[in-house]
């Protein structure tokens, strides 16, 4: 196995250009498990932990740009007020040790449908910044996931960062697992209300070949919500929102749960999430 260890971002991009097969590794909470279980035998691994820029975050044109190497722990501690949905999802990732190592960049790289960061990124309309020696581009996260464990990055590209607008309304994240901590999602649901634009955004995890938004549910409920009067939506509208969210999923039966249960649970989580978010909006959002 070849081991590359760039110390600057420019060096990393040059190495990736020269070794497009190189598998990037940051926290190692996915890559090393895959290697240990012999599910993957990469010829070349590129350790990105020495690239200091990757572990930085900053505000840029009204967006927060978070380096791909920022850990879940730091997102919870440093960015929880600006991205509450992602912070809530980050709290459900593994154990404290995993959260100290694991990164959202790595989650995006693996692009597992069960990645906990993905639903809140979808609900926040995040952008993924991809870079190569020949340039940088920003891909909407809704276009980023191209298949099970596949993403839009080219072979010569590295994930540099993701960009999120600071929360413009209440955000929630819920995840069903069959134990009360340290569990891979059976299915998960993220919701973000954008009070200014009067938009609702969603993200579904672990209930399809990729993380998914529920656009029909979003459009439906945007029209139902009483943004000005802030009265609660009708029970029927909330129920319909749950049904449409569940209908957006493409779940299968697997070792963690059944397709039928996933749809059911998504409808419940969508209903409850809407209730919590709307309550926050009513009492707390300017």
């Amino acid at each position: 196995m070849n081991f590359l260890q760039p110390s600057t971002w420019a060096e990393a991009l040059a190495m990736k250009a020269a070794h497009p097969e190189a598998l990037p590794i940051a926290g190692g909470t996915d890559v090393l498990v895959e290697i240990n279980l012999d599910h993957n035998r990469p010829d070349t691994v590129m350790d990105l932990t020495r690239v200091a820029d990757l572990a930085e975050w900053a505000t840029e044109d009204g967006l927060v740009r978070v380096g791909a190497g920022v850990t879940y722990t730091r997102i919870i501690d440093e960015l929880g007020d600006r991205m509450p949905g992602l912070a809530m999802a980050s709290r459900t990732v593994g154990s404290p040790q995993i959260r100290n190592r694991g990164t959202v960049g790595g989650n995006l790289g693996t692009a597992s449908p069960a990645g906990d960061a993905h639903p809140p990124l979808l609900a926040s309309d995040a952008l993924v910044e991809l870079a190569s020696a020949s340039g940088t581009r920003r891909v909407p996260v809704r276009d980023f996931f191209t298949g099970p464990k596949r993403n839009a990055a080219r072979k010569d590209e590295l994930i540099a960062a993701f960009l999120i607008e600071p929360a413009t309304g209440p955000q929630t994240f819920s995840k069903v697992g069959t134990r009360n901590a340290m569990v891979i999602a059976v299915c998960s649901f993220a919701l973000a209300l954008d009070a200014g634009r009067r938009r609702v955004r969603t993200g579904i995890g672990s209930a399809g070949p990729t993380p998914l938004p529920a656009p029909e549910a979003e459009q439906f409920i945007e029209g139902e919500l009483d943004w000005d009067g802030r009265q609660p939506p009708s029970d029927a509208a909330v129920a319909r929102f749950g049904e449409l969210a569940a209908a957006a999923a493409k779940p299968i039966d697997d070792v963690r749960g059944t397709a039928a249960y996933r749809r059911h649970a998504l409808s419940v989580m969508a209903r409850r999430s809407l209730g919590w978010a709307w309550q926050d909006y009513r009492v707390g959002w300017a």
Partner: protein
Amino acid sequence: MRVGESVRRPDGAAKVRGRFEYSSDLHAPDMLWGATVRSPHPYARIKAIDISAARAMPGVHVVLTHKDVTGRNLYGLEIKDQPVLAHDFVRYWGEAVALVAADHPEQARRAAQALKVDYEVLKPITDAEAALAPDAAKLHPNGNITRQVKIRHGDQSARADIVVTGEYEIGMQDQAPLGPESGLAVPEQDGSVELHIATQWLHVDQEQLAAVLGLPPEKVRLTMAGIGGAFGAREDLSMQAHACLLALEAGRPVKMSYSRTESFVGHVHRHPGRLWYEHGADRDGRLVYVKARILLDGGAYASSSTAVIANASCFSCGPYRVPSATIDGIVAYTNNPPCGAMRGFGSVQNCYAHEAQMDKLAAELKMDPVELRMRNALQTGDKLITGQTIDGPVPVAELLKSIAAMPLPASGEGKGGDVDLTKLPGGVSNTTHGEGVKRGVGYAIGFKNIGYSEGFKDYSTAKVRLFTKDGKARVEVHTAAAEVGQGLVTVQAQIAGTELGVNDVVVLDADTNVGSAGSSSASRQTYITGGAVKTASEAVRDRVIAMARAELRAPSGLHIENDNVVTGTGKLVVPLATLLGDEVIEETREFHPRQTFPLDAETGQADAHMQYAFAAHRAVVDVDAELGLLKVVELATAQDVGKAINPQAVEGQIEGGSAQGLGLAVMEEIQLKDGVIRNASFTDYLLPTILDMPPVRMDVLELGDPNSPYGLKGVGEPPTISSGPAIAAAVRAATGRPITRVPIRPHDLTL
């Protein structure tokens, strides 16, 4: 260190600091690494094995197949039906077919992958009922019934006014010890082998290895290595024979250490089962009869299935007076992974059924479920369904009374302010802030045998040595008893310290240089090895007193206290070290508990068991009924331990056992599809975390068994039996759903 004191584990600090040497940490300078070639099919005929490609891989020193097994290529705890390396058939997914030893573990694994086995794939039998069908393929020469136990007790045509029936299903639980199967085999010049191994019974490993290797037992020496949990998973051989065969062939030490995935096929599991019950009672709620059919899936090989089905049958009715019983227990061979010993050993599966039945009966009679149980509680002097008269304390009613009287935890509702997710079903995953949550309370009680049963020879050996070291008296205790985490090391030291009045007690490493201790299973070691240490210590003490009397013309009534020989009134006669001088007093004793007898083949009647232990649980569970997620809010338990030798260790056993029972109730299951394990990892085989396991409120009774050393009872298994059934009852109470299967899955509660 005296009996009855809470004594800290000597290895506790090292384990917390990561400095404890587990069997997977063993190392020898020039050692090779072993790897196992395993069957990718649950059932297939081996047509040919081609080792040439594996042999040619870099770093490879040895490749072995069934042809290279130097002794008998069959082993097994009760029936010798399992090959060390498969020769004609493979009967389960992951069965060992060949072995490789190489310089580096990765070289060994890759060579194992390169080895070619030509299989004729056969249709596996993956259901125990299907295995019993007359036209089913015979997986073993004597057919697919590993053992059938019949219990016919009382009036076989008894009828009752109130009848309830039920069918129950139990999933396959794994012991999931954190330490993988691992050890180091070191060949010696004289053709013998030393094996350092984490096991539950050194001598039965030795006996089986000697036969497999074709060596006399004295040429196979075993030393206990650092163990990371056992719970029954280390009763059978795993890598022991494989490492020894490789080491003897290579002429170099060979280490083997399973990966987590391999560990799931490297040991037996708890038997999954289906149980059909019919309970008949009179209108006052007194049981008239119980009929049951219990079908356990034993998997591909027998392991300890024959004893597990005996327990499942003997304890099938729970600790109740049952005038008439008709019980048929069957354990069948299938092509599923082999099942054998796990904490609770047959009494776990049936407890789910008999306790669900008792609740059903209570509901039918509109009676309080605890009251119904009290009304039927076994008492000292009652006859069990096996015809045995139960003696010693039988505190069924006391235990029930105790858990029913404990205060209930505060309701989770109406806290106001911020929601504490860690206290809710779903935990930090934020699935409810109280929506859909209903609370239920459930009760269960169970019992089981302590020690071996049905005439299986039960004894232990202890060597106790008293001498002077640096001017002070020291005691060395040597047994072959396996410390598997249960705390036997402190128990042995406490007993020797108590009997000999000496403060410096050293427990030597367990090995085969002393007589057998029997296994660390059946909750028996504190009783049996504790009994042996007590007996040997008493023999040493008698010699010391005799010596004091002879040399000092001292009066009678002497004893030893705090390193001194003292009179009956505590007056110093002589310091022990002074009396001993250079003298070494050593005694070896065996301890044999009372005899047991095999179950009658037609009626199941016999004095089959030596001691019985009881525990009861009350579970309080919050259920998110819409999502099917659970939070066990509290477990309350009462258990009679006879005498708590080390109270802190007893509490640990009760908490740990309750947690393992909780695991089966709510999440732990090996999921199989066509004989293949789908979740052989700790990512998908879920164990309870601290957010899943609640605080345990406990009442430890010390009622004293007149037959046992210090009056003690085995402690380790009873908590595992009733905690899960109490949780199932609480979920039933919360949701109104029948809950006839464990683990309880979210979709069982919602769809």
